């Protein structure tokens, strides 16, 4: 640390830091329109000029380029500095509508007022979507630009005389309006250096310079993945979120956590008129920091508010009719009590959701105990427990100390995931960081091409189900599994053998549709590989990424079969046999989520009582006896436990609408009526109770160090290699690969919305051209994908990035239609081969 003098104050700062960051940290107002914190300076806007006493050749220096040195004397407010900044700003305003920016009357104006200075409506700040949240506007105020120049009126000036370039409003997420652009290039650098997506560039030259996406066409045809990092850094209204663009000026901000995947990025909801209108990354989570993905940024608007339940529903014959909460609760309790008294508590089963909060899961487990049933699970419970068992066998605990932040230091990383870019995008971003900044070596084991491939040192393209064999082969240094390219295998082995040591890691992300056997085998092999790489410390190098946000949390809360309890597939089978007669489902949709859709549908149909607690009228809710309307995730207070076992506080950004209730309150009311008089009915009490019961950190601890407190992490681990899992026999037809895709929203897929995938990018089966040729289909053909019993109608896309013998379909396609092609319990060795039946040419 060194000392500098900033405007007469002595300030401590670490030597070598960029001066502009230090100035901002001190709360001194400084304009910096092109600088992105943490990245190398671009020095394009030149508005951060300060006076550094004694600097050569002139004391006027750019604060973004200047590095802090001991004894530096910096003044930001001298008359010369001010004048220079104003003249620089004047150059920037030369190609931006400037009349409001330099007008002292703006604060008195309303959007409909007639401008005394004759400024046209389309050029006014007052009619700009970014009014009062615009960095350029603030910057003009900081430098007092109105003092420097009058609004530009009456003289010819190209900005006002040439027609504005065409905006791009063609996609549901990102709007691009080039007439607002000041060419700071922050978006270009954010996309390149923060995200490594490289979808944004400067195009043209001279006066015609513009930013452009991809090869210059529309944004949705480029390789942009709509993460919105460019929106975060844009100082003007050039790049804006499309949803709520015109109302995105938040009155208040609510720190929360994203529940779209197990990374658990911390986010802030901007709230206006009691609803979230904008999402920004919140830097609390030390892994996600300033990055989120399209799901985190736009998840809250995936489903229109009118499509959420605001009233509870009760079955009347064939229909579900609106009812008050008390009526629905009474119907639910009566139905469950009737089943319990006639057939015993054993005839009731309870299903939780990996999207629920810990408090909800805790109360759901209590509800099950109040009912007296041991049959508690969630639709991917078998997969999670198979992985947890494998981890316990290898490391003697499934609560390993590995944390994702370690991944950023790893030098060699083996990623076993279908598509980590789609399922856990921020992990993929950090891996790209590691490759680019520290030359880390990444090996990918996957049946399909992913956006991370470009940075991988080796790619092992395996058929679905052969991941375990490949991972075990990498651990043993064995020969290439069947179907794997020999050269790629040699490269992978080379990386793994050179990577052994203190900075190697394994990332394993199972898919919910994988059967327990397949997931367990892959986890065992992945753990063996971690042990081969890191020896005794393997527990600190094994990163298990569940697909959904709170899998670890709800498992901790006891959403798992009790003694003699049935797992999810067993519950469904028992329901089909008529042994289970009632089901309580909280915030899950097994028809979307779980393999074996035909069996599940039959089971739901045969139930005497189905109680659904959800914020949506999901496809499962259609079978319900009573649906209790819960508030959506962004209106729910709770905690979630991410893949790191960090306990994140998910805060409510809006009040419950209509007759929605908090999930905790609904579950408490149910438990209460079913015999658990002590069930806590508020979030705070529920958390106190679960902390006492499970050893979780208290809310004081969670809020005291946000996103830092980890739950139940084992202090010591062992490293016992397990016997290699038995190889999965290959079969001759196509094998289905499916997993979490990027754009299809869980909520919208759960109600089977046509717009579940707003970009309509994920509505196809991807086939290897060789397989397609054999089946006689081409890109665009509509085919029947069939296992001989069920079939799914779907369009074909040919892609040589899919392993031969593999059919890749996103899990949430057509509301989970695909789940009919998998047996109950998930894809396993016995999964039938798929066939493609051409229906019609494109």
């Amino acid at each position, binding site marked *: 640390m060194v000392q500098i003098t900033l405007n007469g104050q002595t300030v401590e700062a670490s030597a070598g830091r960029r001066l502009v960051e230090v100035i901002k940290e001190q709360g001194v107002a400084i304009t910096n329109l092109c600088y992105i914190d943490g990245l190398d300076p671009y020095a394009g806007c030149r508005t951060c000029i300060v006076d550094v006493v004694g600097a050569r050749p002139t004391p006027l220096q750019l604060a973004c380029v200047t590095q802090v040195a001991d004894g530096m004397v910096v003044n930001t407010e001298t008359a010369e500095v001010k004048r220079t900044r104003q003249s620089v700003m004047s150059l920037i305003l030369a190609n931006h509508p400037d009349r409001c920016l330099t007008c002292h009357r703006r604060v008195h104006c309303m959007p409909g007022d007639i401008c005394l200075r004759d400024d046209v409506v389309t050029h006014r700040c007052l009619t700009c979507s970014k009014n009062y949240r615009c960095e350029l506007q603030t910057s003009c105020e900081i430098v007092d630009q109105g003092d420097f120049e009058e609004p530009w009126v009456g003289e010819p000036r190209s900005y006002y005389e040439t027609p504005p370039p065409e905006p791009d409003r063609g996609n549901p997420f990102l709007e691009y309006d080039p007439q607002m652009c000041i060419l700071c290039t922050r978006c270009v650098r954010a*996309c390149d250096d923060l995200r490594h997506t*490289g979808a944004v560039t400067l195009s043209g030259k001279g006066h015609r310079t513009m930013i*452009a996406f991809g090869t*210059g066409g529309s944004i949705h045809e480029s390789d942009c993945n709509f993460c919105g990092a460019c929106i975060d850094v844009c100082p003007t209204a050039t790049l804006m979120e499309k949803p709520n663009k015109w109302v995105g000026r938040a009155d208040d901000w609510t720190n929360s956590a994203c529940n779209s995947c197990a990374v658990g990025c911390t986010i802030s909801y901007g709230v206006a008129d009691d609803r979230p209108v904008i999402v920004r990354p919140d830097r609390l989570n030390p892994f996600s920091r300033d990055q989120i993905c399209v799901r985190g940024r736009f998840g809250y608007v995936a489903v229109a508010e009118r499509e959420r339940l605001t009233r509870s529903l009760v079955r009347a014959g064939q229909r579900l009719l609106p009812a008050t909460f008390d009526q629905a609760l009474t119907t639910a309790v009566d139905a469950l009590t009737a089943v319990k008294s006639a057939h015993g508590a054993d005839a009731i089963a309870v299903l939780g959701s990996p999207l629920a909060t810990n408090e909800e899961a805790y109360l759901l487990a209590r509800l099950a105990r109040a009912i007296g049933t041991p049959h508690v699970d969630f639709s991917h419970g078998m997969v999670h427990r198979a992985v947890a068992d494998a981890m316990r066998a290898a490391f003697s605990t499934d609560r390993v100390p590995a944390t994702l932040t370690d991944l950023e230091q790893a030098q060699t990383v083996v990623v076993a995931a279908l598509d980590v870019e789609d399922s856990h995008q921020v992990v993929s971003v950090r891996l790209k960081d590691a490759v680019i900044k520290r030359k880390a070596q990444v090996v990918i084991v996957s049946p399909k*091409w992913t956006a991370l491939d470009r940075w991988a040192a080796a790619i092992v393209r395996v058929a679905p189900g052969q991941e375990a064999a490949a991972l075990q082969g990498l651990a043993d240094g064995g020969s290439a599994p069947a179907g794997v390219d020999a050269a790629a295998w040699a490269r992978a082995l080379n990386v793994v053998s050179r990577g052994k040591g203190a900075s190697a890691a394994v990332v394993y992300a199972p898919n919910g549709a994988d059967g327990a056997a397949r997931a367990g085998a892959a986890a065992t092999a992945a753990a063996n590989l971690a042990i081969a790489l890191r020896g005794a410390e393997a527990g600190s190098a094994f990163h298990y990424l569940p697909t959904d946000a709170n899998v670890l949390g709800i498992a901790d809360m006891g959403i798992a079969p009790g003694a003699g309890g049935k797992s999810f597939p067993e519950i469904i089978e028992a329901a089909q046999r008529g042994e289970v007669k009632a089901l309580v489902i909280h915030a899950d949709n097994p028809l979307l989520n779980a393999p074996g859709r035909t069996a599940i549908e039959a089971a739901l149909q045969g139930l005497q009582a189905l109680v659904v607690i959800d914020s949506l009228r999901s496809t499962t809710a259609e079978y319900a006896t009573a649906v209790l309307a819960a508030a959506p995730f962004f209106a729910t207070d709770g905690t979630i436990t991410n893949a790191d076992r960090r306990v994140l506080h998910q805060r409510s950004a809006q009040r419950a609408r209509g007759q929605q209730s908090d999930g905790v309150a609904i579950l408490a009311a149910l438990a209460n009526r079913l015999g658990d008089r002590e069930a806590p009915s508020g979030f705070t009490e529920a958390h106190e109770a679960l902390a006492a019961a499970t050893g979780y950190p208290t809310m004081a601890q969670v809020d005291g160090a946000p996103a830092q407190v980890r739950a139940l992490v084992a202090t010591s681990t062992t490293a016992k290699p397990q016997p290699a899992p038995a190889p999965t026999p290959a079969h001759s037809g196509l094998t289905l690969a499916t997993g979490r895709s990027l754009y299809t929203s869980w909520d919208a897929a759960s109600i089977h919305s046509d717009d579940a995938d707003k970009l309509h990018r994920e509505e196809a089966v991807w086939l290897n*051209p060789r397989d397609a040729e054999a089946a006689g289909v081409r890109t665009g053909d509509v085919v029947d994908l069939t296992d001989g019993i069920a079939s799914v109608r779907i369009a074909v896309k040919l*892609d*040589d990035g899919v392993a031969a013998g593999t059919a890749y379909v996103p899990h949430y396609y057509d509301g989970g239609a695909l789940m009919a092609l998998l047996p109950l319990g998930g894809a396993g060795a016995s999964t039938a081969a798929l066939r493609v039946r051409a229906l019609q040419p494109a």
Partner: protein
Amino acid sequence: MPLETEARAQIRALVAEFRPEHGDLLAAMHSVQHHLGYLSSEAMEVIAEQLGLFPAEVYGAASFYEEFRFTPPAQTNIRWCSGPACRLKNGGGIRDAILATLGLHDIPGDTEDGRAGVILGQCNGACELAPMVWLEQPSTHRIEFVGNLNAARAVRMARALRDGATIEASIEETKRA
């Protein structure tokens, strides 16, 4: 990773000799434009893949240069010389006459039927011919110069091209009294 289509395979063959980090980007783009007449989205993607760049980087570089185009070229291009000698001898007037005849507003531009287009040329030192244009046929790589133009001859030439005449016939038009 997009599929290997026939067009893609053809472009891939065109750029196969170029290597990443060899300063080969411009050469690769020239090669594609020379053979196909323009840089399609697909072509830029293939070049990006070949050179280990993002498609946006290829487009960013290509769009800097007036010479690269992103739409298929017209049958015949009039390359208007923008050099100082031509300008001194009413090159600007020649340009305006050609643009007006073809119904275009600016350089570069193509007629709607794709028969004729006007693109920007740079001085190649044949200033004794000023004001001049080149007539180019991208499909055959044929290039003819037409010098010592005046507005009337330029209009006759542009009219002939607009109406679908060959390069020879158009040049003949400029020679009529």
